[in-house]
């Protein structure tokens, strides 16, 4: 196969040009509205703009990344109270205002780091993260209550001076803040890096095994959103000249979630619209029906969560799409695959074993699943791990790729001891793991999924979409063989089972691993697909000098492609040798004695 780039030019209208144009139009509209609209509406909209900005951060965290957070109100409150406290106790001046802004943002960032430490770590449950974000505003509000005169306690602080600019100017400032935020966020989520948010939401484990430190990413995202919310809170305090604990509390935090849910999570424009409509609407309506209004919102919320989880935005969008004339979706642009330059492999690397397992043990309580597992695997080997169910094969795979998994013993990847490293760090050492059930990212396209896989090697742009995706040759081979190279724009949910398996393999190969762990790669494949994938494996190990470690049940398949077989039984290695040796051994036959006749029959054939 010639190493050649696909010769195609992708026509790429800069995505950000469109966004900037839309933003510009919005700003002009804003300026006009600031003088045209009645004062009451202007007042309400200023508030709604700032709330919408915070709702946007909730959407980024929850709608896109799957982190349910009730705590964005706390950061909003921190920004607001920074302004309120400084202006009340130290007075108002331009330097003080700047100082207050810096203090608010700094405090929010620090608190976010603490929350990140608490909530985002390898193995944390999403429920726990949500709990932490729920406790945060409660703690903050109690802190404010216990501040007595200094913080204004439950009455809040008011009567402080602020910028002496007219309301119309504030309208423009708040609106511009929202518009800039919205445009930036839109560009980010559309960019290649932004797709990672969706990937994390859909399949966090897969991301970790692609070398992405998910916890760190989430914590960074929360830091950014905290800072944005604090900024919004600062502006809020400046224009309203009042701060009160309810702006930092968890009721406001849950309201934000409700607005995002009703507007449509994961759509940016949905939360903005939802927030503005509900907040401004309640200003007009709740005066007349205080209890009924809240009841209506509550009912709508429950109905949306249960029956329409995507919110009302998709409903509106479908309606709009039907009403407007059809146009080609600009982001369905074709992505072109190209060959990435292969990384240099020194000869010395080949001398060390790719994998070195010594005395690995794993027990659950008193149940010992693995005991005394020791072996080496070298580059160019295609090593199959076989054994009856419950022998511990999958457990062993996990122990190799995740440093925290095993109970005792040592694992070295490429000569480096993995100690208790998390999967993403193990991946950095050169190992890739393909799961048993094809785990790809349902909402992403083939190209996007592959780009996520390249994240560690080639960090994607944070603001644009690259029309070219470079992949190492082995990955391209897999794509070409299975026809996936012709469908870069197809969403993964529409792929067949075999195609998903191939895509996942390509993703793992995109990591440029030296060792690949494959957990039952032929499960669910047709005979033809099995042959194809067998050829790929052989090519990977012989041509590309990778070390492949396979867990397999299909003994015929194992026999055809392996260079070496290890037999596990009841957590121990009972045999480790070449294909003929193992296949013909009495011991193995007796281990499999309870297995299907077909397997025994195959072995008879092999012998004969």
């Amino acid at each position, binding site marked *: 196969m010639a190493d050649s780039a696909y010769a195609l030019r992708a026509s790429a209208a800069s995505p950000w040009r469109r966004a900037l144009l839309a933003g510009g139009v919005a700003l002009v509209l804003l300026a006009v509205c600031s003088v045209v609209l009645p004062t009451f509406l202007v007042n309400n909209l200023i508030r709604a703009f700032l709330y919408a900005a915070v709702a946007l951060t909730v959407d980024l965290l929850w709608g896109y990344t799957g982190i349910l957070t009730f705590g964005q109100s706390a950061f909003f409150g921190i920004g607001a109270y920074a302004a309120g406290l400084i202006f009340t106790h130290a007075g108002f001046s331009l330097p003080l205002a700047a100082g207050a802004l810096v203090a608010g943002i700094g405090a929010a960032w620090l608190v976010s780091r603490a929350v990140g430490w608490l909530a985002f770590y390898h193995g944390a449950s999403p429920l726990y993260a949500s709990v932490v974000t729920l406790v945060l505003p409660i703690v903050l509000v109690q802190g404010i209550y216990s501040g007595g005169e200094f913080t*204004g306690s439950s009455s*809040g602080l008011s009567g402080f001076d602020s910028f002496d600019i007219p309301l119309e100017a504030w309208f423009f400032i708040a609106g511009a803040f929202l518009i800039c935020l919205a445009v930036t966020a839109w560009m980010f989520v559309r960019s290649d890096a932004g797709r990672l948010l969706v990937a994390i939401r859909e399949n966090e484990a897969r991301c970790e095994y692609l070398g992405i430190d998910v916890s760190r990413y989430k914590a960074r995202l929360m830091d950014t959103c905290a800072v944005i919310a604090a900024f919004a809170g600062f502006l809020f305090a400046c224009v309203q000249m009042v701060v009160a604990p309810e702006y930092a509390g968890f009721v406001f935090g849950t309201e934000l979630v409700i607005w995002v849910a009703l507007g449509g999570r994961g759509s940016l424009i949905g939360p903005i619209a939802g927030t503005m409509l509900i907040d401004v609407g309640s200003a007009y309506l709740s005066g007349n029906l205080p209890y009924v209004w809240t009841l209506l919102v509550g009912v709508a919320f429950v109905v949306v969560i249960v029956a329409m989880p995507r919110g009302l935005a998709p409903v509106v969008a479908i309606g709009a799409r039907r009403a407007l004339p059809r146009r080609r979706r600009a982001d369905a642009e074709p992505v072109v695959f190209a060959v990435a330059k292969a990384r240099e492999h020194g000869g010395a690397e080949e001398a060390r074993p790719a994998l070195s397992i010594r005395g690995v043990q794993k027990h659950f309580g008193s149940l010992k699943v693995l005991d005394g597992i020791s072996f080496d695997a070298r580059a160019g080997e295609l090593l199959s791990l076989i054994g009856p169910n419950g022998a511990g094969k999958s457990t062993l795979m996990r122990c190799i790729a995740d440093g925290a998994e095993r109970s005792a013993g040592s694992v070295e990847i490429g000569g480096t001891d993995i100690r208790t490293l998390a999967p993403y760090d193990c991946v950095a050492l050169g190992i890739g793991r393909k799961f048993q059930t094809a785990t790809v990212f349902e909402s992403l396209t083939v190209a996007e999924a592959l780009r996520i896989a390249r994240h560690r090697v080639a960090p994607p742009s944070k603001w644009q979409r690259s029309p070219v995706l470079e992949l190492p040759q082995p990955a391209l081979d897999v794509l070409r063989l299975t026809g996936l190279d012709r469908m870069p724009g197809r969403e993964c949910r529409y792929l067949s089972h075999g195609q998903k398996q191939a895509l996942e393999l390509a993703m793992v190969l995109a990591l440029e691993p030296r060792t690949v762990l494959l957990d039952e790669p032929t499960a669910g494949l047709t005979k033809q697909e099995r042959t194809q994938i067998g050829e790929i494996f052989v090519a990977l190990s012989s041509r590309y000098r990778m070390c492949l470690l396979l867990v397999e049940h299909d003994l015929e398949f194992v026999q055809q492609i392996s260079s070496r077989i290890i037999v596990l039984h009841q957590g121990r290695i009972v045999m480790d040798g070449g294909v003929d040796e193992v296949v013909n051994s009495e011991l193995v036959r007796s281990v499999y004695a309870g297995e299907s006749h077909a397997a025994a029959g195959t072995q008879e054939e092999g012998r004969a």
Partner: protein
Amino acid sequence: MKKPSSFRNARGATALALLLSLAATTHAALAADPVKIGVPVGLSGANSVVAPSVVQAAQLAVEEINAKGGILGRQVSLEVADDGSGAAGAQKAFDSLIFDKKVNALISMETSAARNAGLPIVTRGKVPFIYTSFYEGRSCNRYMYVDAWVPDQQVAPIVDYFMKQQKAKTFFLIGSDYAFGRGMLDFTKSYIEKQGGKVVGNEYLPMDGSDWTSIISKLQAAKPDAIITSTAGGAPNVTLTKQLRAAGVKVPYGNLAVDEGTAKSMGADAQGIYISGSYVTNIDTPANRTFLAAMEKRFGKDLKTPNDLSVPEYEAVYLYKAAVEKAGTFDTAKVIPALAQVSFDGPRGKIQMNKQRHTPLTMYLGQVQADGSVKVIESFRNVDPGAQCPALK
């Protein structure tokens, strides 16, 4: 009037009454635009128990004024808005009343949080605001007047009574941790110490706290001669009283923050509590008797007991009328100084907000009886509010 818990949709009745009265007043409107008085009040939230009584008081005042020809020949209409008993809701309510409904004046009671949140909007909108709720004092704004009591007026009767008649020397103070609670008890503490008493405990619980266990344990360990409390309205008042009684605490108990209505609804637990305020329903003056009769006639069985939060509202509407008539115009710049010069003889006596925007008041010390009524033990005439807003005129 001890009624058990009601299933009646009180809110619906109030809304209906409001709609009817609004319809009535607009019908009676002459060619001139009606004068709008805005009432931002806690229809939901912590003040929602007492808000209906405040609205009723305002309605009666407006109807009486309209029957006599209105203010400067123009009929008066009420605009009620819900401030949620808090800062966020107050901003919306004040915004709505001042900029959307364009009221001529705001007359209402709010929580301190709501008041503080609304004041910047009042300043921006340049509208006179008469604050009709008792509060912790020292809130000052160019456009605001207060016709209810401040701690300087309310605390002394109880403390003096305890020290003189009950011979109490040591006091234990309990409050809700918010501006009003802290403000009241700070003043109480300094007053007690000035009179030679001793404060042996001063504990606070958060606004929404309902578990007074640890505080009660401390109380019993300190063995004070008397207790004085200033908790937030509604639940904290009720829970503290219940838990105190359940723990068997029997020392004299003065509650700075409970009104007659809540005390009645506390039932047997409230018996013996001392309260101090500027209004009790048994005030035996012609003005009060006329007022009560008119309320009874107007609202019948939907009547919410007039109390120390609703009667100032009634009087404030009349004070506004007097100020406008004195100034000869509705123009805010002229009405504001006029508000300090006029007076009104209401159910609480003569009200004139001429002491740095606040008014001297007659204060009553009462004790809750077994049947829930309040017996007046002593009354103090013309208690001065002290220096509340020295910076204002």
